[in-house]
């Protein structure tokens, strides 16, 4: 036995899996079911990621071959991120031209695969033996993720637009875009990437692809920690970053937050490489940063809050070389704008706000407060300086899943508890670099975002900063004491992580039947999506070609019809449209002008006390009046065709009934 440590670790991992699998309720016999049901999607996602790595390596090699030559793992993450930017650009271009389809997408992936296969022989490297221990821990902690990524997407954002828009792109060849579907005005770079995975493995490939991206981001974060604090930092990073309930909850979900982790971590790896090798940032690095930032920005605009500090530090590092390079680096921040240009220009063409159609809605004077997209002061302790200052405590220590007073999620308390250690280690340039990026990112998040899920893009960086500082502090103990202290700290962190993620871990096991083929995707959706019966009715009974308008619906299921007015958060556009209509009759005419005779409605409840910042008049016109108009519309001008729980389907008669005799 030439490599006893990995062999033993592998045996332990098998044993752990054997213990975890049956106790999870899945049963060893269903492994084959998982391979059959979830496996194809995983393979498809892996192929796209592999192709992205190949494409990225090719492009990065042309830009800067010697970059990260001493760190092939970090280089691989940068290559993957760059490759994703390249594939994303290809997919977006196809979509803009209306040429996206399964075969063009497959050709794009195939080109990346060819590059990847050609590069593989160079990249086969010996893995460090100590890696197996963390792998077992990670596998056990992320075990439910294997199940949840085999389940169809049922999350609000997944059904509201992510999966819907990807389906649109694959089936119709172009990006969804309509003035009455404002979410389609957001940048759709992620949907381009997801569509590539769909082209290989269909919808079941979406969640595995999201998991793959998130996994790469988390792993890249480990590399960030490792580059600053060495092996111990990378090891301590794992329980810190994974011991976050909200992370485990969101990793298997198709979204635009966790994918950003990879791009931001890759950007930090670039900066660290420049910093640690004492090479000031040059134009090539700036160009690569531009690609990474572009991909991130066209996935989600809020990435700008986290990219800005990255660019700030890159510019500072570049300034060590000369002013011109610094200017070049600063100018490279415009590259992300180019990535988002297709959607920015399309919004302008449609007469909407360039960034986000909902931001440009014309709201009556004095009603601005009632027609905001998101009442961020409802998350956390509220508005004002006091609430802002106590955000770290509320976020890291008190954080609670599904509690909007605590930002609708939970990370872990370690970043705050170990903040003094971080402060003490600021003399370390790597920790300092991370601290600046993380602090500015947190400050940006605490303004307009204020939900844990929106913070996940820099969660690996927060964890890496914490782990690197802790490892550095422990290293100061010296020699064997340092190693033992790191082991004890790692054990404590690991135990804490297990306790932290117990709830999402347990909940994730519920996906076992559908992930192993024992339950159909339809049955799973019917169980999880309370509006599923209404959508099933629409699918079965509304004639093809009709336009279906929704009101206050967050989750939309495919029915084969054009769907309008999908909304999120405060459903601003729906409320505004109803308020402008003024009466049920006005709303009927508005729907008629949209060519829509069908309405799917969720009965919303807006409680006055839930909006303490609004005046009575603002609440009346912003919330009560729209509901009154909706009720007039559905009761006086439509006919109920189906109802189930809070959901109902209405039909507007093609011709109004003659007056009663």
């Amino acid at each position, binding site marked *: 036995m030439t490599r006893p440590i990995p062999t033993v670790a592998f045996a332990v991992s098998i044993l752990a899996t054997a213990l975890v699998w049956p106790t999870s309720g899945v049963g060893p016999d269903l492994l084959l079911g998982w391979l059959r049901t979830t496996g194809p999607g995983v393979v498809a996602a892996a192929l796209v990621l592999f192709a992205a790595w190949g494409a990225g390596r090719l492009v990065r090699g042309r830009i800067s071959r010697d970059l990260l030559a001493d760190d092939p793992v970090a280089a691989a993450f940068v290559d993957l991120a760059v490759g994703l930017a390249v594939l994303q650009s290809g997919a977006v271009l196809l979509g803009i031209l209306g040429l996206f389809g399964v075969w063009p997408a497959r050709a794009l992936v195939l080109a990346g695969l060819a590059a990847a296969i050609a590069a593989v022989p160079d990249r086969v490297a010996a893995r460090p033996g100590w890696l197996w221990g963390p792998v077992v821990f990670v596998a056990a902690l992320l075990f439910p993720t294997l199940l949840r990524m085999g389940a169809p997407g049922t999350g609000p954002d997944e059904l509201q637009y992510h999966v819907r828009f990807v389906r649109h792109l694959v089936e119709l060849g172009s990006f969804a875009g309509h003035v009455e579907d404002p979410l389609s005005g957001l940048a759709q770079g992620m949907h381009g990437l997801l569509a590539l995975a769909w082209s290989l493995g269909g919808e079941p490939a979406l969640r595995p692809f999201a998991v793959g991206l998130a996994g790469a981001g988390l792993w890249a974060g480990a590399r960030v920690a490792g580059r600053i604090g060495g092996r111990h930092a990378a090891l301590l990073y794992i329980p810190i970053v994974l011991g976050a309930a909200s992370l485990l909850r969101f990793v298997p979900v198709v979204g635009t937050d966790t994918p950003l982790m990879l791009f931001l971590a890759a950007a930090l790896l670039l900066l660290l490489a420049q910093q640690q090798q004492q090479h000031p940032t040059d134009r090539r690095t700036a160009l690569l940063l531009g690609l990474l930032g572009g991909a991130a920005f066209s996935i989600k605009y809020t990435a700008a809050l986290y990219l800005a500090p990255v660019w700030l530090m890159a510019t500072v590092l570049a300034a060590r070389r000369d002013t011109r390079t610094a200017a070049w680096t600063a100018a490279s921040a415009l590259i992300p704008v180019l990535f988002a240009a297709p959607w920015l220009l399309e919004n302008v063409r449609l007469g909407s706000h360039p960034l986000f159609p909902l931001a440009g809605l014309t709201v009556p004077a004095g009603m601005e407060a009632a027609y905001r997209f998101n009442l961020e002061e409802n998350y956390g302790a509220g508005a004002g300086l006091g609430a802002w200052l106590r955000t770290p405590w509320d976020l890291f220590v008190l954080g609670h899943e599904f509690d909007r007073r605590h930002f609708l999620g939970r990370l872990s308390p370690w970043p705050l508890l170990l903040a003094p250690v971080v402060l003490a280690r600021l003399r370390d340039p790597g920790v300092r670099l991370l601290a600046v990026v993380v602090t500015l990112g947190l400050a940006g998040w605490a303004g307009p975002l204020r939900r844990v899920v929106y913070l996940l893009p820099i969660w690996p960086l927060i964890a890496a900063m914490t782990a690197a500082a802790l490892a550095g502090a422990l290293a100061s103990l010296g020699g064997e004491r340092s190693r033992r202290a790191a082991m004890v700290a790692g054990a404590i962190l690991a135990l804490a992580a297990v306790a932290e993620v117990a709830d999402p871990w347990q909940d994730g096991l519920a996906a076992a039947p559908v992930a192993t083929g024992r339950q159909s995707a339809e049955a799973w959706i019917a169980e999880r999506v*309370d509006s599923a*019966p209404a959508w099933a009715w629409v699918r079965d*009974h509304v*004639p093809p070609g009709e336009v279906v308008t929704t009101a206050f619906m967050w989750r939309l299921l495919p029915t084969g019809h054009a769907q309008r007015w999908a909304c999120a958060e405060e459903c601003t556009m729906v409320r505004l449209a109803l308020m402008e209509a003024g009466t049920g009759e006005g709303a009927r005419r508005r729907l008629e002008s949209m060519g829509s005779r069908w309405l799917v409605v969720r*009965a919303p*409840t807006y409680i006055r006390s839930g909006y303490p910042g609004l005046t009575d008049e603002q609440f009346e016109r912003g919330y*009560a*009046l*729209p*509901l*009154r*108009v*909706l*009720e*007039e519309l*559905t*009761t*006086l001008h*439509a*006919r*109920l*065709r189906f*109802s*189930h*729980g*809070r959901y*109902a389907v209405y039909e507007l008669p093609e011709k109004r*009934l*003659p007056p*009663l*005799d």
Partner: protein
Amino acid sequence: MPPIVRAPTRLSLLGALVGFVGCDAAPPTPTAVRLDRPTQAQGAPATAPTLDPRWLPPSTPRQPAPLLIGVADGALLVAPPGDDASDVAWTEPAPITAAALPAGWSAHHIAASHGATLTLTVDGVALTATAGTLPGPAAQRPLAESPDACGDRRFPARVAGGLASCSAPGTLDRWGATPLPGPVRPAEATAAGWSLALAGAALGAWSPVRADLHGRQRHQLTQHPATGGGQIAVAEDGRLLIGAADSGARTVLAADLAEPPTVSATHAAWIDAQGDDHALILRRHRPAAHARVPGTTAPTLPRLDAGWLTWVDSGRVHGLGLRGQPSWSVPLDAGFTDGATGFDDWRLVPDRSAGRLRAVAVHVASGVVVPAWDAGADWVRLRGADSSGITAAVGPPGATPRLAERVVRVRVLEEDGAVAEDGLIRMVGGHGGRHGLLAAGQSHDVTLPPGPGARLSVWVPAGSGSVAIRRGAHSVTVPIDPGPPRWIDLGDVLRGEAVRVRWTAGPDSLGVDALRLVHDE
């Protein structure tokens, strides 16, 4: 149960029902009476739809023409002279004396035109009666339950005089304070007068006094279940299951239901979606047969009430008599939303003809339409009804409504009316000389479904014996001595309390007639 000796005078609802299913019972004598329709029922009746005569049993048309009066704290329905419309469910028995009764009317037959006001005396209590009304605002009281407690537009809902409600949104698990057999989702239940159709973990009908539940198999429902007359109907994908609520046996029919079905002891009906074409299907249980109701274009909201099938089509409410009664059709801007309910031979439907949402009542035996609940600027969304009252969510549009109920203060249970459709009362006979007779030593039981608190009394038309009332473990027997027809007080019935009444004939016969509940304020 020993046979009941019927007074061979007139045919009751049961008799008519028996006639429909093929027994030798003569149909009632036809009577031509002009309907004094309220304003809502203006316009010439449309051509009434009829079923294929090959399977609809022949019958003699009859035009029951009840006139309606309501009292401030109750509702009464009386029939005109000469008409033996004995299947009218709400007929106040004697002694009702009116200050000025039209000539030719007995105490049982009080004539009034719609909107007229009469002063009546019931048991010495003066009541103001207004024709053409149902329980009005005076009988209304708010309920503490939140109308949004279930996260469902149909629940909480009135069942058997109480509210079926949820401890948490999506978990229907209680009737008042009484737990249901098991939590179900509101989508798996339907409030149906005196019982609740359940198609969750258990399938069948539940009421506070009886649970006709069967099986533990969860059904993949495509529509809300239905129950009535001891039957249950459950729609699944591409099929409809119909059978006795307390039995596992089900008739399975191929059907793609566009709306929830409706079922009674004798029939079932549903809207079958055949592509763009929606067909109203009527099924008879015995002998089993079903057919499409012709003449319908876009039928919706079918409902079986007291031997009638009613539905909405093309801006009209249609009624089809299942015992061969002449059909009717009245214009009504209904059928646009759910919330249709009913009790006895009333069907309540939401109406929007006034530019707001209110409830109207259609008397299924005649097609007479009267306002049932008009709250002015507030909109009324029906949340169930039974013969003890109506429950609705009331409030302005767009705002969270409040639950309220209008109770029927004086309620007379007699012969086959009221709750007979739910199979809870098996009483025969009736007032006005049509009471049943128990031979010496025979007995007859009636179980009253729980409802609001009430004072219970029994009408004794003739004979002697005893009447025992049993509440839980306690039983009280009231002797009946020979004497003139009279009401005998049986004491209080608590809210939600199930009561069993037993008549036992003495040495002579004993007349079995009406029970009366006078509800608490």
